[in-house]
């Protein structure tokens, strides 16, 4: 699990550095300020990308040093370090992919079918494979259908939100 945390730290640094590179030119194209008027529209963007770039690298260096010394990166672990890292990555990433799929499916097929599919798939993802019996899967399907219809009805008829 500590290795996953270190890899996450690397990933965050890479993403942030990537954003710094992407946003560098637009930030420095804006006016930072004048002597009489103080700060311009470019002041905060410039500050953010420079600060994020410096801090991201500093944080990564600190995490690497901490990992090499103590076997763990600095900071509180929100997820129990005893948790199987494959479970964290597998279920975590799969859920995020399913959420993206839910959103895409909503636009293409409509709210109800995509919501039912998301609920059923995510529930099965959280169930250990040994429990994938008809006895467990039928309630999952029923609840996915009923919950989706219930949410749709509340939002469309009570809250007047058009869920296509």
């Amino acid at each position, binding site marked *: 699990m500590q290795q996953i945390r270190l890899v996450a730290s690397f990933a965050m640094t890479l993403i*942030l550095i990537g954003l710094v590179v992407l946003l560098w030119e637009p930030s420095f194209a804006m006016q930072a300020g004048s002597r009489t008027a103080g700060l311009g529209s470019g002041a905060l963007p410039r500050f953010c990308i420079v600060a994020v770039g410096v801090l991201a690298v500093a944080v990564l260096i600190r995490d690497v040093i901490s990992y090499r010394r103590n076997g763990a990166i600095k900071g509180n672990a929100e997820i129990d370090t005893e948790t199987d890292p494959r479970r964290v990555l597998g279920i975590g990433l799969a859920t995020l992919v399913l959420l993206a799929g839910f959103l895409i499916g909503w636009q293409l097929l409509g709210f109800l079918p995509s919501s039912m599919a998301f609920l059923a798939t995510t529930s099965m993802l959280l169930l250990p494979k040994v429990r994938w019996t008809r006895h467990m899967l039928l309630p999952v399907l029923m609840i996915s259908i009923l919950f989706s219809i219930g949410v749709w009805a509340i939002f469309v008829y009570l809250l007047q939100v*058009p869920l296509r």
Partner: protein
Amino acid sequence: MDIITNLLSALGDVLSNPWGMVLILFGVVVGFIFGATPGLTATMGVALFIPLTFPLPADLAIATMIALYCGSMAGGAIPAILLNIPGTPSAVVTTLDGYPMAKNGHAAKAYGWALIASIVGGLVSWLVLITLAPTLAKLALKLGPAEYAAIAFLAMTIIASIVPGQLLKGAMAVVIGLGLSVVGLDPITGEGRWTFGTLNLMRGIDMMPALIGLLVIPELLASMFARYGLAKLPYDLSNFLPTLKEWSGQAVNNLRSALIGVAVGIIPALGGSVGSLIAYDQAKRLDKDGHLYGKGAPGGIVASEAANNGVTGGALIPLFTLGIPGDTVTAMLLGGLTIHGLQPGPRLFETSGLIVWHILAAVLVANLLIIVVGLFGFRFFIRVLDVPRHLLTPALFVLAVVGTYALSNQVFDVVIMLVLGTAGFLMMLASIPVYPAVIGVILGPLLESELRRALVISGGDWSTFVTRPGAATIIAIAIIALFLPNLLARLKGNRKGSKPTSNLEQNL
């Protein structure tokens, strides 16, 4: 006199509105459910239910959300006592004495102590809220742009530095949040910033999708990996409330802990867990039976629960008077207030005074309803602990997605929520605190606009932040707050080598 007149009038309106009373009761019950279920938090509850409050009048909507907040603080004690797992982060300290009491066969009594302490804590915090908030609001009207910019800076530095040894990560998270607030049109010149010419990005990143993405999605993901046991209902639920004589032995502890909770709640970012920790530590030192703490002492439960409910009123004070949230739940409430057309800050009492007093009256009613809900709902809330995770968590994801969409019927908001949710998950894995990023998103526009306004007034002269006494004092406090936790942690580390650690430190 003004306060009493306004309050009595508002209380009369609230009590004479049956629909309002039902909504407040609903808020408390839902709060208890969210508080009692490990993995679910008050922040999540408020975020997911805000869209459901759209058709409601502003005062009822906000009152329902605050009732949810108060209920969740009280509900967090249930799994803390029965399972040794806090229902909310604020109930961590309740496990220290609540679970040992349950193991000794006194689970119901432990819960009774928690319930009474929660109510007293909530009532004390409410009294401080109605006394201080109007006065602070009048004071805040006298503040200028330099002072406002300094306050926003102070809030960010406190939040960035709250955990010793994580200053770099906290600071980075704040700057990430500031960066998110930059996207869109410049508030003064109207120039597009980081928009790449797209219409969606010109709208900027809305606060609510950002909050739901950063706070709710990572928490839901983390709850998928947690392991929870099954709760057993205590055999005997009769006489579980402490008698008046028993409570009088803990009265001073109860009141002191509530006040500690209020004080902690006023300071942004500290939250219920810090409040209950400080209150527990004080109670243990000052109680003649302090040596029994950690083994099932009622005083430990009282201190923790009084403080975490005390935080609720304290956190509302900076929210209402300055527009600065005291914790993650009030950050969500800020979004809720804005959605319902209320602008939190010093002018809130001027522009929407009637609505605010109705909300304050409803907070009193919510705190009183905690005893009703807690007394009659205990058996039900224990059953809630057994709802299968594989059904509950996906349902909450759907509510998060639909709720975000419902805010302005924009798919782009959901995209932002998912992108930031992914980023929040990565940040959680990398132990980068997310709450500073949330505060950066919320306070970034305030900091930038007030900073620029102050410099325009002073003709570009930065010394205005040093020559104005208010601004100078606040900035000095901010600088001290930035470095003090680390300094104290280092001094403590040096002393630990020579002194044995206290039971509290060992337990935590």
